[in-house]
């Protein structure tokens, strides 16, 4: 890539919970078109860093700058699935449409444009046939793909994925990797993925960030 545009620039970033700092004075840049994999052992701060990028966790010090006109609403986030969600009575459509709630809609219903956008995102993750299905009855891989569709609905330029293949069988994992690769190559999405899968990281990523090697 001849010209690399900075999309996100972290400077002296410190993140943590309560009095505990997990990421300390960290400097990093993410460029347009990156397929960045973040690896490292448990508890080293990968997920915390991603939560910081997603805007879920406010920096305790330092800052995260969005550059090149990147806006929060153009960043999609796929958090790790929670115990609550596994047993949640909701249809796939309801979950995917909930991605639009950031746009401060107060309407008790969703317009046609939003529904079409949701259907597009479902198609991109090959879950369009599950639109009316009950989320808690889906397989692990299907659940992840639905949540990825939801992230896509809220995103145009960047995806933040937190362990998207953890707990999936090899086939579902491969499926997931293929979809992400497609999004990266065809939709020109910038991908930031936290993962334990070092092998896949080496195969797909254009950049690697190893949190074990960061001096904390």
């Amino acid at each position, binding site marked *: 890539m001849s010209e690399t545009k900075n999309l996100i620039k972290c400077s002296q970033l410190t993140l943590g919970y309560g009095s505990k700092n997990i990421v300390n004075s960290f400097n990093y840049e993410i460029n347009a078109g990156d397929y960045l994999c973040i690896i490292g052992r448990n508890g080293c701060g990968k997920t915390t860093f991603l939560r910081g990028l997603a805007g879920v966790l406010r920096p305790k010090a330092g800052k995260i700058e969005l550059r090149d006109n990147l806006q929060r609403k153009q960043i999609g986030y796929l958090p790790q699935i929670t115990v609550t969600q596994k047993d949640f*009575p909701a249809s796939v459509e309801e979950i995917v449409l909930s991605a639009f709630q950031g746009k401060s809609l107060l309407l008790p219903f969703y317009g046609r444009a939003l529904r079409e956008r949701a259907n597009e995102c479902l198609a991109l993750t090959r879950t369009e046939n599950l639109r009316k299905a009950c989320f808690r009855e889906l397989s692990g891989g299907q659940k992840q793909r639905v949540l990825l569709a939801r992230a896509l609905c809220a995103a145009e330029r960047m995806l933040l994925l937190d362990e998207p293949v953890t707990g999936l069988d090899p086939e579902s994992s491969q499926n997931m990797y293929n979809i992400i690769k497609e999004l990266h190559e065809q939709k020109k999405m910038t991908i930031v993925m936290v993962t334990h899968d070092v092998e896949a990281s080496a195969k797909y990523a254009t950049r690697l960030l190893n949190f074990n090697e960061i001096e904390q």
Partner: protein
Amino acid sequence: MLDQLLFYLDFPFVRYAIIVGTLISLCSSLLGVTLVLKRYSYIGDGLSHVAFGALAIAAVLKVTNNMFIILPITVAVAVLLLCGGKDAQIKGDAAIAMVSAGSLAIGYLLMNIFSASGNVAGDVCTTLFGSMSILTLKPTDVYLCVALSIVVLITFVLFYHKIFAITFDENFARATGVNVNLFNLLIAIIIAVIIVLAMNLVGALLVSALVVFPALSAMRVFKSFFTVTIAAAVISVVCSLTGILVAILAGTPVGSTIVAMDIVVFLVCYITSAIRNKKA
């Protein structure tokens, strides 16, 4: 039996009880789903005890309308418990246990020491188990209950999708720019209002049953958030109505009769889903 029912319906307080009971059960069921899914069921229980303590304080202060004391105190505690969050010194279930048992004790103590009414046992019995309270509402209570119920209903309809988004995935909602803290605050306030309202219907100790049972029943059978919410509302209203009617016809305490209805419906839903799963 129908004659008897029509005879009872002639009395205005019976009609008030039915109207207010329907509205309260409708409100309480709506957020039940959120409460169950967010693992907040026990907070509802704790808050009802707080409301009982507040009621005792109101009785001691001899205010004209108890609600003006109970509502602010319960809302304040709800906000502290639900929104105090990660920085709180005493965490989660311990805080709830502390607050709920504490206010129960203080409430009973105050009622015993200061109660103006001769029938302390009756007062305690009716506020804890809702034996009769819905049938002994004063006209001002009726208006207040109706008004609060309507406010809760409108708020819920208006913010239905936001509440869903936050219930399903708080982190994601935050990432997409939903003001999660604001809506958590709103949910806490609505829950407190519902608890105070529901205390009139089933009494402090049984409030969480009224909130949780319809939601759990609906979750067994229905598969989308929307259908679960509607079903919970229908179940709650039907159970409360039949509960009130059975209670006045058979002379049983209102609160526990309603909860008994809720339990029956839950069992039916549980068995239905079990059979369906076996077939599938």
